[in-house]
């Protein structure tokens, strides 16, 4: 079995010795036995630390949970700077969490969280920050400042949390380069290893925003378009 890995160029490796191996096991095999210069990231090897996301045949996967197949083409994530081979620089992507103020503003006294409260954002709090969604999102091609799927999911997680005391602040900051820039294409949902739908979270954030008096700016420009007629 052969697979190709995008390094400076596509390099083919023969990994016939392995049977039913995950991509991470395959990368480890190549690194320790064939070519120690192959460069990639890993950690938990059990799909929970978010280190090993790459693209296989143009789709984002976790290397540690993907089973390798003949002819696979492995590439680094998109929308992030490649440092070397499959290792990318996540600094800028993670900064969107800060720019979106994705954290709790503690209230003076914390209300009890009910079972229903907890279920409201249980899935969102399963995020492992693997950035698969970030890589799959088409918006970055046009707007590199888009706060992006995982940060917006985190914002939804906190604004839907009864313990948060200042949802408004977060809703305010995601109006620009945020929820309205999303095309609702659903690519992020398709690749999330944790079954999170950032698209759905963004739609919910749009609804919340209208409750706070914000409007879809795209309607505005559409009106402008009508004026032109």
């Amino acid at each position, binding site marked *: 079995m052969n697979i190709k890995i995008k390094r400076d160029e596509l390099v083919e490796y023969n990994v016939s010795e392995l049977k039913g191996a995950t991509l991470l096991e395959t990368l480890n095999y190549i*690194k*320790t*036995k064939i070519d*120690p*210069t192959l*460069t*990639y*990231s*890993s*950690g*938990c*090897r*059990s*799909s*929970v*630390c*978010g*280190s090993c996301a790459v693209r296989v045949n143009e789709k984002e996967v976790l290397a540690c*949970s993907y089973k390798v197949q003949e002819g696979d083409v492995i590439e680094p994530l998109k929308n992030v700077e490649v*440092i*070397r081979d499959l*290792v990318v*620089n*996540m*600094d800028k992507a*993670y900064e969107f*969490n*800060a720019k979106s*103020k*994705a*954290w*709790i503003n*503690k209230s003076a006294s*914390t209300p*009890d*969280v*009910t*079972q229903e*409260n*907890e279920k409201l*954002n*249980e899935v969102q*709090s*399963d*995020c*492992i*920050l693997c950035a698969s969604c970030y890589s799959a999102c088409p918006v970055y091609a046009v707007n590199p400042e888009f706060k992006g799927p995982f940060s917006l999911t*985190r914002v939804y997680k*906190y604004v839907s*949390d009864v*313990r*948060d005391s200042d949802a408004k602040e977060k809703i305010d900051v995601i109006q620009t380069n945020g929820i309205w820039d999303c095309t609702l294409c659903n690519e992020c949902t398709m690749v999330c290893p944790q079954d999170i739908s950032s698209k759905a979270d963004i739609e919910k954030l749009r609804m919340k925003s209208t409750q706070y008096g914000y409007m879809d700016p795209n309607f505005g420009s559409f009106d402008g378009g009508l004026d032109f007629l």
Partner: protein
Amino acid sequence: MQNKVLVIGSGGAGLVAALNAHEAGADVTVLTKDYPTRAQTSMAQGGINAVLKHSQNDSVEAHIANTLKSAHGIASEEEVKKLCTEAVDAVEWLDNIGVQFSRTKDGKIAHRRLGGASGDRACYAQDYTGLKILHTLYDQVISKNIEIINDRFLLDIITKQNKVEGVSVLNKRSGEVEVYSANAVVLATGGYARIYDKHSTNAVGTSGDGIAAAIRAGARVSDMEFVQFHPTALKNSSILISESARGAGGHLLNSKSERFVDELLPRDEVARAIHEEMQKGEDIFLDIRHLGEEFIDEELPQERKLAKLYENVDPVYDLIPIKPVAHYTMGGIEVDKNSQTKVEGLFACGECANHRVHGANRLGGNSLLELVVFGREAGVSAADYAKNISVDASVDKIESNNILDEINTYTNDINFYEARTALGDMFYKNVGISRDKKSLQESLKTIKDYISKLHLMGVKDKSKIYNTNLIEFLEFKNMLELSRLVLKGALDREESRGAHYRSDFPNENEAYAKHTIVDINGVVAS
């Protein structure tokens, strides 16, 4: 320079220390060899122990008693009391900052039972407890604008007259050695169970780098021989199936479908019982089928996913093949009541430290708790210390450069990855659940042999940019240094206690009811 606290490591312990040092007024920077949310803490599944106000049929006293019992006489009663008493506060704090703990019907944090506990006292967030705690801590750290610098590998701690002055790190992206000066440094770099290589549940970078650097800098370490084996890792991949599966009523079965041990005994006892069965040629399985699909999907969703993905079995319908593997290292850097090491201004917390709360065998759920309780203590102590001390801001990096230059001259006669695999296999066999003098001595000989041959095991990749071949070599070198200490402790301790089982000395011996303390020159006291 004033008030500068560096935290090395961004797992639960490091982030708690950073938050608390910041709150205590320090200027904090976190350095980590990857990214904050990628630390091993993300892997913790089962829960964090705390007897909360609504806990029924349980008490802080029982938590203390269980912890001490499991520690087999070598925990500090005072520290254990601190740990268990501050647990309520720790979990309430986590709840306040947004951790999504699972809830009971009446809106209280839910509890479940783990091994060795007399009550249901592990607070959990499904079986993603560590993940949700770590991510919430990270969100808090960025909310405080605390600086985090990613992709920096700790090389050495810089000291002058036994006082910390900073650290030297390898910038993985540029390949350059960088020096960060600081008034105080907190080590939170995790444990060393990856010495066991593939026979370990741990994340790949759990190579004890901080512990090795601490010894080189003049700190002491202790109890390195105590390594906990978790009874239930998946047979092929060593990926953990949480103890909560047994806590919820899961059974351990041998090939004849017989139960052979009380599943809720402490880990050392269950692991030994499994080991004995396996020695008889039995295959061992975890059976949770009777818990039912609904329960499994609600309480143990990750376990089902992991078993399907990595062992090709669905626990709702199938038995899960398991084996015990190395999971947690009780030993670590010696610290005093303020989490300070023997080096002034150098603090430690989390799995890399030995706060003497786990003794010879850690209880499940006490480690996440330790991260919060002692992470806080280390952070506050470091901030206090930093306030009152000034250091020279121009420390130099000559020594660490020397090490890298030297490694650069090593030849490639031996593939160190093969040596790393062999080390893991040997440790699992000889320094595992059961040890004896002969197997330990043999292993020590092999380790010394490896160390003497390091100059033949060089790094093939000569690139400066993101050289993971070099990083893995540095980790391997640290693991070799620590292996020697594990073996030294295990050889000296001619008795069986908790996780340290000597088949040639199967009984606990009162004469050894003490800690094995080691510094760079060897055993200091025991």
